[in-house]
């Protein structure tokens, strides 16, 4: 668990803090996304966790211990670190890059090699093809996979990720996000994840901390609650006018409680149960139908506009549980 307790950062020679009195907790095994406009101090906040930036006021506790209880380098070896620009070592092979922290920690060679291969597998790069290559031989998406593998190398309980999928095209980004969520289901790291993209925040976060200019926390909550009950003008404008549609993307149609369809469904539009409700709605409208059939576990459910409205509980109603299980 990571706890921010009244954390502020003011740079010397400046009278305005870049992060101001930040307090929130990241529970064990969850992804907390720090999101906000540029200059809101989200990256600064993240970098104070592993003390790449030192705190001016307040403290950050990791499993109850202040992060100042050991040296900065020792602390950083225990915390995974992945950044947008990746920062792979161009003069080292992929295997050496991934093995950086295990090497610093003094693991023996065979254990490092085994771990490297295991991680290459995890991030979907065939070890035999990639371990001896240099970063320049890899595409941007492959490099970001290696960056994530490198951050995971010593199996740190905590990870810091600063727009780790930011440097690739939208399609690659989406697949990297999906893959990472799949990996996270198994490894259950406690993650501080920085992005400027609210859609990424909604997709990746178990919790979202929205920061505003001057490093002030505007709202800290689940994506569902932030979308359904933004507690300020700033948050609602930051999440966007389409926040209702965004909420629809938190749920897959297969997870909806749908009325059973009893026969006569042959002419109806069929929708894949893996689609998000948002995409299903789009298909429904696009096809000109008002109802569609969703096949799930051998049963046919009936997707209607009413069912979607019910899911939303009205545009500003109670948050709907189950959104998170879409991951």
């Amino acid at each position, binding site marked *: 668990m990571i706890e921010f307790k009244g954390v502020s950062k003011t740079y010397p020679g400046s009278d305005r803090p870049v992060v101001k009195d930040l307090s929130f907790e990241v529970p064990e095994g969850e992804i907390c996304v720090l999101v906000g406009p540029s200059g809101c101090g989200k990256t600064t906040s993240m970098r104070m966790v592993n003390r790449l930036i030192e705190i001016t006021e307040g403290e950050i506790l990791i499993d109850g211990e202040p992060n100042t209880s050991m040296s900065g380098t020792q602390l950083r070896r225990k915390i995974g670190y992945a950044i947008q620009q990746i920062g792979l*070592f161009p003069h080292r092979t992929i295997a050496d890059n991934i093995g950086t922290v295990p090497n610093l920690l003094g693991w023996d060679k065979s254990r490092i090699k085994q771990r490297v291969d295991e991680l290459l597998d995890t991030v979907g790069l065939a070890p035999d093809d990639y371990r001896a290559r240099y970063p320049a031989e890899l595409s941007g998406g492959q490099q970001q996979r290696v960056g994530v593998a490198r951050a995971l190398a010593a199996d740190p309980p905590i990870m810091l990720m600063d727009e780790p999928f930011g440097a690739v095209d939208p399609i690659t980004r989406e697949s990297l996000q999906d893959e990472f969520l799949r990996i996270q289901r198994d490894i259950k790291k406690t993650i501080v994840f920085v992005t400027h993209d609210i859609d990424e925040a909604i997709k990746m976060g178990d919790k979202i901390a929205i920061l505003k200019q001057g490093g002030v926390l505007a709202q800290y909550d689940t994506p569902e609650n932030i979308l359904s009950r933004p507690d300020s003008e700033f948050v609602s404008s930051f999440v966007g006018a389409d926040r209702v549609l965004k909420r629809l993307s938190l749920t897959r149609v297969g997870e909806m409680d749908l009325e059973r369809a009893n026969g006569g469904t042959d002419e109806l539009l069929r929708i894949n149960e893996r689609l998000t409700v948002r995409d299903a709605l789009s298909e429904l409208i696009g096809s000109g139908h008002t109802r569609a059939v969703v096949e799930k576990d051998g049963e046919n459910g009936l997707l209607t506009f009413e069912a979607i409205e019910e899911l939303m509980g009205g545009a500003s109603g109670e948050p709907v549980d189950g959104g998170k299980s879409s991951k």
Partner: protein
Amino acid sequence: MSNPALLLLQDVLEEPKLIDWEWIGENFSEDILPALQGHIFLSFVSVGIALLIALPIGILSARYRKAYPPVTFVTGALYSIPSLALLAILISIPGVAIGPSPVIIALVAYSLLILIRNTVAGLDSVPPETKDAARGMGLTDRQILFRVELPLALPIIVAGIRIATVTIIGIATIGAYINGGGLGTLIFDGIGRQFPTMIIAGAVLATALAITADLLLLALERYLRPWARVRRA
């Protein structure tokens, strides 16, 4: 041809041949080879000493940016002194005897600017995100310097060594003027004796030496950068 006086006269009147291979054959091991060895000695000792001075200064200048302008000012001033004048100044200093040492001092002084500048440029060329990732993973400052920054800066540093070496091999010929040895001995003697063969031997060997050193260092530069040889994805 039987009259010795005529023979002598012919010898004097005849234009000296541009390249007298016979002379080269006869004097190779006595004059030419020692001059070449002396030249190699002067150049490489100078570059070696210059590196020992320039690397730490370059690393510190890259770290503590305020030190860099004064460092470039001083080494730039040294670089701009005409070589002959620098040698003259050096041997006028009491305690500095004529011979190889003032030559080496002068050559070191000439290489510092190039070597320090390339060290700083090399360290500056390391991508900031690479350093950030290194720090974020828990490398110490020293580990970052030796495992990340210097290896990545090395090609540019070696490029500096190439330029410095070629420059120095050229300038070192002047060292013979103050008895520093080297291929300049052949050139100066050749001028004094109006014997082109010696001049040409000295000049050609100095040029060949410079080109050879340049190519060897180029090969070293390539060797030190295996990651740049690979094809981009």
